């Protein structure tokens, strides 16, 4: 079975631009969470979606938004990019209310 997939793998954007990152969860998983991992730090929670509804939001500005589609895939959108948004963005999927999350390989975003 395929694991969590994310696209693109790498992305380079300019300050002020907009970016969309995509995630496909493991088949049968209805929960998707997004994390930001800045170099040298642990992942920071951004959002969790379950059954297409936002279940939780971390301490990130409104420039960050996300949504989950009927097939449970998800998009993370970031507007007005700043240099500090450069990071590895990780998506994790889970089954129901289980805390066991499976992570994708991440999207490396570089803002110049």
């Amino acid at each position, binding site marked *: 079975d395929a694991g969590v997939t994310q696209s693109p793998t790498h992305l380079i954007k300019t300050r002020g631009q907009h970016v969309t990152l995509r995630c496909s969860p493991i088949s049968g998983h209805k929960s998707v969470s997004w994390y930001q991992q800045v170099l040298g730090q*642990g992942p920071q929670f951004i959002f969790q979606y379950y059954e297409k509804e936002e279940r*939780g939001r971390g301490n990130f500005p409104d420039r960050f938004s996300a949504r989950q589609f009927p097939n449970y895939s998800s998009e993370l959108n970031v507007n007005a990019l700043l240099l500090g948004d450069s990071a590895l963005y990780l998506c994790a999927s889970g089954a129901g209310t289980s805390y*066991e*999350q499976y992570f994708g390989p991440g999207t490396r975003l570089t803002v110049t």
Partner: protein
Amino acid sequence: AQSVTQLDSQVPVFEEAPVELRCNYSSSVSVYLFWYVQYPNQGLQLLLKYLSGSTLVKGINGFEAEFNKSQTSFHLRKPSVHISDTAEYFCAVGLSGGYQKVTFGTGTKLQVIP
């Protein structure tokens, strides 16, 4: 709010020696605890988890961890490390009864020396 402290940013250890990676957490309610491993340029892989029950948890690749509620610790151990264990290890905590927000520590880089 919960928080996680990983006391060592880097741990060098010789191959076949034992290792302990330390993790302490802070929370006013019941928690779930996790250890993840991250190899270079990859996502995170779950090593083991404590949800309830036995305080000694065994995971993949020969790792185990012990939940100590009185000391609010969840240290990761392996009796004999291999070169392939070289990676970054993250301790994480989630709140029971809530949505699946997981708070990660800052990570410990394990360097296995041949």
